[in-house]
């Protein structure tokens, strides 16, 4: 029941926001609903971490440790993004770029977006998961195009076209899984329930499952941003309003990956780990290579962050390829760490765009000297994203690599390290151009408003804290990993 309430609250908040005109307190109401999501996530996690999954509506909604973890991820990053939306909308309204009506639309859409993502992670039925993921595509299309500039419309066109095709392929994959389950043998109760798929996974037809998994990886991979279907990502992430980019990059990608993880568990039962390993290694390395190549001469810092997402999705794909409990736990830690760091960076870059008026790397100079706090946040965010301690991405990367070597994917680890070094070099060089340098004479150091800086610093501290302290996440991560690893 809690899972239903979890869905109900953001949905209801969205309805309330729709009924009311946009006002500041509506924004805070939306923030509060995300706070509720986060708290509920934590409660759910404590409820299911050592106990069997909760389910509601005859299994349509089902919460196990993995779902609970994803709810926490959505709650944490959603809270950050929604609270920054308040400032974003106020600035937009103040500058006349948007009206209160459209602001209301924005608030409603964001709540709908959150609800759809929550539905995707608490759904017990893979078909419902698919519907929810597709729903996120539709909702975010409007959010990507929210600014209604030519670029924003272009980005949303590409986004919706490419993702719809991808998600359609994922639907075909789901159909094939269903087909395989129908023929899994007499006496089995057939449904698209994930648990029932898992229970028959050893009897699924391997030929069909191979096809199905490949289509699912390709299809959901589109939403995850895995190469070769990543191409919508830099456009959409760079054109969307910063809080939306933060949500998309920080959570949406990994929600889709969550669905893939579930399917991988089913397919591994039918095929053994070899096939999924091959698939995930291929897309993972391809994503890393694409991200490394395109980061080298990147000119736009928001696109840089977007390609960075492609890189990290590639990394978690490689981690999933390893597939050991340690690897999956590390993948999940990476999901959270990457989400926080990427959200912080997108929100910070939104602020930079606001004050500098450009997204060109070349046009932004000496941020550390001119805007010490904002520049510092951006710098630390990059440090976190590049996988340096004390931020949690370092530990998740380390453990993913360990797991990869452990299962005999040493060469994959080596290649990914090389590509990561290339990425490190190029991001370092872009960051150098943006952050370092002298303040022009006569210009004073600007202070960014604390409504922006405090939550972002808080998120960075959180990202560092989950990197340093094992408690309390460790147990949850291991429990969640055991859900999809047998």
């Amino acid at each position, binding site marked *: 029941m809690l899972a239903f309430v979890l869905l109900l609250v953001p949905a209801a908040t969205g309805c309330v926001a729709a009924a009311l005109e946009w006002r500041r307190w509506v924004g805070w109401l939306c923030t509060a609903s995300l706070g509720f999501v986060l708290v509920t996530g934590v409660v759910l996690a404590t409820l299911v971490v050592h106990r069997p999954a909760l389910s509601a509506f005859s299994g349509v909604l089902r919460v196990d440790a993995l779902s609970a973890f994803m709810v926490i991820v959505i709650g944490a990053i959603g809270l950050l993004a929604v609270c920054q939306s308040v400032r974003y909308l106020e600035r937009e309204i103040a500058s006349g770029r948007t009206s209160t009506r459209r602001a209301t639309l924005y608030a409603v859409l964001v709540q709908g977006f959150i609800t759809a993502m929550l539905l995707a992670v608490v759904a017990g039925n893979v078909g419902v998961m698919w519907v929810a993921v597709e729903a996120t595509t539709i909702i975010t299309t409007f959010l990507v195009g929210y600014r209604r500039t030519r670029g924003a419309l272009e980005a949303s066109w590409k986004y919706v076209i490419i993702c719809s095709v991808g998600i359609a392929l994922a639907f075909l994959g789901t159909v094939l899984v269903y087909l395989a389950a129908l023929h899994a043998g007499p006496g089995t109760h057939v449904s698209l329930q994930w648990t029932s798929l898992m229970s028959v996974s050893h009897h699924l037809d391997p030929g069909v499952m191979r096809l199905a998994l490949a289509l699912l990886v390709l299809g959901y991979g589109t939403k995850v941003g895995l190469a070769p*279907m990543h191409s*919508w990502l830099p456009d959409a992430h760079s054109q969307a309003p910063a809080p939306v980019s933060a949500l998309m990059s920080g959570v949406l990608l990994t929600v889709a990956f969550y669905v893939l993880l579930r399917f991988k568990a089913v397919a591994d039962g039918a095929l053994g780990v070899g096939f999924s390993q091959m698939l995930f290694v291929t897309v993972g390395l391809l994503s890393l290579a694409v991200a490394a190549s*395109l980061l*080298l001469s990147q000119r736009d810092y928001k696109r840089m962050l977007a390609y960075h997402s492609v890189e990290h999705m590639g990394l978690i794909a490689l981690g999933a390829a390893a597939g050991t409990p340690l690897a999956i736990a590390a993948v999940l830690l990476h999901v959270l760490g990457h989400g926080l760091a990427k959200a912080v960076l997108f929100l910070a870059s939104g602020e930079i765009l606001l004050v500098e008026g450009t997204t060109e790397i070349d046009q932004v100079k000496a941020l550390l000297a001119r805007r010490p706090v904002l520049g510092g946040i951006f710098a630390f965010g990059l440090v976190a994203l590049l996988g340096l*301690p004390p931020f949690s991405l*370092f530990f998740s990367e380390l453990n993913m690599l360990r797991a990869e070597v452990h299962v005999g994917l*040493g060469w994959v680890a080596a290649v990914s390290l090389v590509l*990561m*070094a290339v990425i490190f070099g190029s991001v370092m060089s872009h960051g150098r151009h943006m952050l370092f340098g002298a303040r022009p004479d006569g210009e004073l150091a600007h202070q960014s408003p604390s409504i922006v800086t405090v939550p972002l610093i808080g998120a960075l501290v959180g990202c560092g804290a989950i990197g340093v302290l094992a408690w309390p996440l460790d147990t949850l991560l291991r429990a969640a990993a055991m859900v999809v690893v047998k």
Partner: protein
Amino acid sequence: MNEVYVVTIGMAGLLAAILGGALPASSRVVAAVALTWVSCGAAMAAAVSVLSSDHVISLSTTAILPLTGVTLVLNQLGALFVITISVVALASTLYWLGYASHGLATRSASSAMPLFVTSMLLVPFAASVATFLVLWEMMALASLVLVLTDQSRREAARSAAQWYAVMTHAGAAAILLALVLLSAHAGGQTFADIETHARHLSGAVRGTVFVLALLGFGSKAGAVPLHVWLPKAHAEAPGPASALMSGAMVNLGIYGIILVGNELLGGGPVWWWILISLFGVVSAIYGALYAATSSDLKRLLAYSTTDNMGLVLIALGASGLFAAVGRPTTAAIAMVAALLLLVNHSVFKGALFLAAGAVQVATGTRDLDRLGGLMRRMPVTGVVFFIGALSVAALPPFNGFVGEWLLFQGLLHGLPTTNTSVVISVAVAVAALALTGGLTVAAFVKATGIGFLGRGRSVEATEAHEAAITMRLGAAALAALCVVLGLIPMLVLPAIERAAASAGRVNATSATRGWISLHLPGLRGVLAPSLLAGGLAIAVLVVIVLRRSTHRRRHAWPAINSVEPWGSGRKLQTARMQYTATSFAEPLQRVFDDVIRPSRDLDVSHLVESRYYIERIAYHTSNDDVIERQFYRPFIAGVRWWGERARWLQNGSVHRYLAYGFVALVIVLVVVA
């Protein structure tokens, strides 16, 4: 008791970093320094207790670091490094108190400095893969922040930081892969697990791990050709930070090689050690050559670090080589020599960088061609540099000499062997040692002579003022240690022998004997540094007395007369007529022209009226790093080229994007079905 030490180190360091970042400018440096000292003190106490007993300090918990937990163990080898690092850190942070007012009191610097020191202190404690890598990366990150101190004013600092960051990251990636390979095959990620399993690994895996570790740690130690970041970063970092980097951080590169090669893998075949020696030989000669021809004071010191680490690598390689061919005694001597060289290097290079930092603060430049005459303007700093220079040139009675002597003895006594590869490597090593020695002497005569003696070559140099008292104290403490260790190396030798014994399979605890003189049991080699110095001192006294006594009291003129030097008949002698660092190095540069390949540029502009009259001649010569120019730059250009080409992938056409998906789908269908 164990926990107390470790927790104190960590907590004091963390608190120092937090206070350094949080307190107002007036008090943050003092607080950070005080707490860093607490950290250093605890580390030294822990190290001493480990070295004076057979116990190790260990602490492990799963409450910190997700998915892995922390394992800290301090053995004798680590303890030696901890002590060395603490000493350099104590002196450097004392120095920092005075240096802070010169732009090193910012929040980021005050926070990064304690963090840097603490993470360095803890690296030798690390006893699991995750712990080690975390501390390693923290160390790199903190030092990177320190290199960036001057970023807003100097493009060179930014560029240095980038080189440093990228090279360090690449090195860390190699280390990570090496350690992860080991841990994956050993089943556990603590070093104890690895140690027990590593012996049963296949030769190929062991070799891969070793080479990766050598590359990764070698880059940190500044081994050629992975050294390019070092002359940039060490030169650009502010005084105390560069002293810490050169005096303490590079040690950890060597520590890593010993850790993986000797401790975790437990030694290996001959080719490993020949590879190390080769690295060492190339680094030593290359570093010495560039030190001899460099005209930037801190760059010179940095290249000299490469050179010294080369010697250490030669010694390490020799030790492993001798152990591999079954000569444990000489192996032990070589290992002791390696560690002694390392300890000595920390002390004198720390002193030199602190002195150089003081010069930079006083004159605002590091360019030797603009310095001069500082011995009179900055007497304490001058003497510190002088002592440091003689130490690094391995001249008795200073500490550098003892290490080189020990290395020479080790090589000499390892030579009579039938193994051809050993003979060749040792002969090459001695030749490199010798060539390096000569070049280092030339380099430091240049640095001292041009930088501190003669007349000031710029206004800044002639108006320089001696550094603050804490800066002088910090630098002088290390210089004094140079002398003490030069006279009584036995102060540290027992500790070094214990460390060497714990590092290798060799029993090094009796490699050297004696208090006044240094015996090598089983070998005919004795050195009595303090007697040597005593004799020298007596001789100096005698000569001075002799010189005094010849001056007859009945003369009306004073014993010594200060005059204008002879100027070939010219009346006026200006400071510009002096030899510069560039001209000093010119003959050497000419000799090694083929290696250094300096770029020379002669620019003659004639008077407009007549071609026969020359208006001005400009001569530029620059000896930027030939390896950087010939290998790194083309490589970077290649990567850049690829980056430009790759933009084609994402040209904005939605058709192309869909085609990626379509082709992928077709491939999937064909391959999978």
